[in-house]
């Protein structure tokens, strides 16, 4: 793995940065970057022959949950196939293993104990011992992996929080940072992890009900304790606003179930990606009609023969209309999810590109403010009209 920071945000009050990140045979990727969510190592609905249609190299980082392989295939078989890259036929992709997938496999802290970390999974509640996890990791051979963490949600008590940190930092060598909603615990955990020989930092325990307002302080407590030269990966921040919050704090890599959830709900991302369109759009149309996404199940799209986003160059927008996707959703055809995951992934990778450009051009804060402002105005409008 190689990582180096290229630019630091010049705006005040932000530690946003861009960098270059490289894993194994995977081409060099610019950060902040998105790890694509997968099910058993492949994107949920995008088969491997369709993957090259996504923007490269941006789409080369995949998040894999080792828990997906707890049943159906043994570690021994995965080893004999030769690990994830060979098993999935994706030799030039970077695999990042993080236990939770934020979809079906979620940490279940009430059942986590000294022996292992507990997760709710499609095969029931599983107690994963560090040794089991390590066995999985060594058979999967991901390019990067986060240590098994004891993630606790925001509402657990301080005492419980303390045990979480001890268990995670103790005896493990790779950097999972937890600590719930307690700033001191977060800092303590980060400091403990930094002492270990780790090549990067995984920040867990977010996206479990903490408020947006308390997040910046928690993030800066963690980031402030980390050395500047290591890559920082976070789980659980997926919405555009959350990503912007993470980037502002200095996060480099995001694993996110946002696209999956949009896709399953029949939504397509539509927000403008480039700042220029952004500004003129704002003036021309007023703030009212601004939407981040559209619901393609809505009957207004029944006869809409235009693509989701006119200027989008993804496979879906180049080949299909809103009317067709509306029909596919109506009749519960799998192709709807395939086309939506392609578009949404393409669009969200574009969002990350815009973020990087904004940081490089020293206008990240303006970019972020404008995005949030427009979003807020839109929501207000919706609330008024409702």
């Amino acid at each position, binding site marked *: 793995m190689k990582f180096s920071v290229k630019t630091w945000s010049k705006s005040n009050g932000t530690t946003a940065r861009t960098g270059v990140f490289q894993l194994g045979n995977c081409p060099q990727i610019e950060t902040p970057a998105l790890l694509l969510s997968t*099910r*058993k190592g*492949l994107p*949920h*609905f995008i*088969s*491997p*022959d*369709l993957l090259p249609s996504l923007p490269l190299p941006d789409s080369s980082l995949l998040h894999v949950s080792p828990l997906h*392989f707890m*049943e*159906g*295939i*043994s570690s*021994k*078989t995965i080893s*004999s*196939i030769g690990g994830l890259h060979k*098993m*999935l*036929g994706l030799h030039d992709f970077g695999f990042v293993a993080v236990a939770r997938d934020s979809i079906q496999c979620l940490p279940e802290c009430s059942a986590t104990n000294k022996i292992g970390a507990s997760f709710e999974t*499609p095969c029931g509640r599983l107690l994963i011992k560090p040794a089991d996890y390590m066995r999985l990791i060594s058979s999967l051979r991901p390019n990067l992996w986060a240590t098994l963490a004891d993630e606790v949600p925001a509402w657990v008590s301080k005492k419980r929080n303390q045990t979480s940190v001890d268990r995670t930092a103790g005896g493990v060598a790779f950097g999972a940072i937890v600590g719930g909603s307690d700033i001191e615990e977060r800092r303590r955990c980060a400091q403990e992890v930094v002492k270990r020989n780790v090549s990067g930092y995984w920040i867990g325990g977010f996206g479990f009900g903490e408020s947006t307002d308390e997040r910046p302080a928690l993030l800066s407590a963690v980031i402030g304790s980390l050395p500047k030269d290591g890559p920082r990966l976070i789980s659980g921040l997926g919405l555009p606003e959350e990503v912007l919050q993470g980037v502002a704090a200095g996060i480099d890599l995001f694993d996110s179930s946002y696209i999956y959830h949009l896709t399953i709900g029949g939504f397509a991302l539509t927000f403008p990606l480039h700042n220029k369109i952004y500004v003129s759009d704002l003036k021309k149309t007023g703030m009212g009609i601004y939407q981040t996404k559209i619901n393609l199940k809505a009957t207004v799209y*029944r*006869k809409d*023969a235009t693509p989701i986003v006119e200027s989008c160059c993804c*496979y879906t927008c180049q*080949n*299909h*209309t809103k*009317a*067709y996707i*509306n*029909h*596919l959703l*109506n*009749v519960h*055809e*799998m*192709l709807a*999810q*395939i*086309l939506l995951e392609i578009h949404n992934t393409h669009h969200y990778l574009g969002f990350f590109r815009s973020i990087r450009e904004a940081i490089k051009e020293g206008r990240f804060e303006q970019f972020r403010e404008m995005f949030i402002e427009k979003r807020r105005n839109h929501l207000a409008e919706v609330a008024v009209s409702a």
Partner: protein
Amino acid sequence: MALRFEVLGRFNRARAARLTLPHFVSQTPLFMPVGTQGTIKGLTTNQLEEIGCQIILGNTYHLALRPTSELIDELGGLHKFMNWPRAMLTDSGGFQMVSLLHLADITEKGVTFQSPVDGKPMLLTPEESIQIQNRIGADIIMALDDVVKTTITGPRIEEAMYRTLRWIDRCIAAHKKPNEQNLFGIVQGGLDPVLRDICVRGLVERNLPGYAIGGLAGGEDKDSFWRVVAQCTALLPEDKPRYVMGVGYPLDIVVCSALGADLYDCVYPTRTARFGTALVPEGVLKLKHKAMAEDTRPIDPTCSCMVCKNYTRAYIHCLVTKDAMGSQLLSYHNLHYMLQLSRDLHSSIIEERFPDFVRGFLQKMVNAECECSRKERDS
């Protein structure tokens, strides 16, 4: 007539042909995958082209319900609606009504059925079926026929055959786009050679662009099925395509091609894929089976498809019937298998090695079957 059918090679009754349709020049024998609701389940149109699909099917009944033929027409036809550049075929809608709806009643006027939307009785006439298919815009459209189960006997078979013949004239009269769409007639008559004979002759008199052999693949024994196909292909004109409806087992396609049939359709390859079964030269491979969990070979080591080049049986095993990707990958492989079989049939006839190809095909299947029963006996 909006097609050209040129026989390029023959072996006895088998033929390899070039079928030129408004949207595509296809090669026969050919399997046509079924895309019921304007999509082949789990595959993009790009993938279908890559696999080598040349003609795909749409189901009139489903499309007329959603998104409706009027909407498809307004948006420029089904080709444009689903962005499929190659050829397409739609059925008449009659079969679905009979097979999916309990309360379908067939009279001289047409098929009366209960609307799945509001439960009211509705009537599909031959005229209406053609109007709907004209709006959908497929390269090949099918006449509304009176379908009866092959396992039924008695006067109902005869009635259905004669009615099918009467309806063909109403279909021809209702067909508004004979220069853009080809109306195929359907031979009925159950397993009765006399009725089949009357029906074929009646249809051939109408000089249609192509003919289908219907009412088969519904549970009759193989001998009766093959005998009817053999009889019909012998009577049908040499210079028109022949389509055996609802046939999708690889073995049936090979046998029917040897008997002189050209086109086939069936949901089997994609449906069985969704249930976790792969088509292989030896027959079928059930990926759900426990033994697959440790099998690190590809589904079919002789297959050149994207799935077989990249994935082990063990990995597919952990996907099937649990994750969408399992259906997607197996559907891809199974359609690739069917289209490869179509290409092999075509080229082996052209290259005058059809008997060798058929022998090899049968040998693999039979050997595998013997091995299977030996294992069963030993265990």
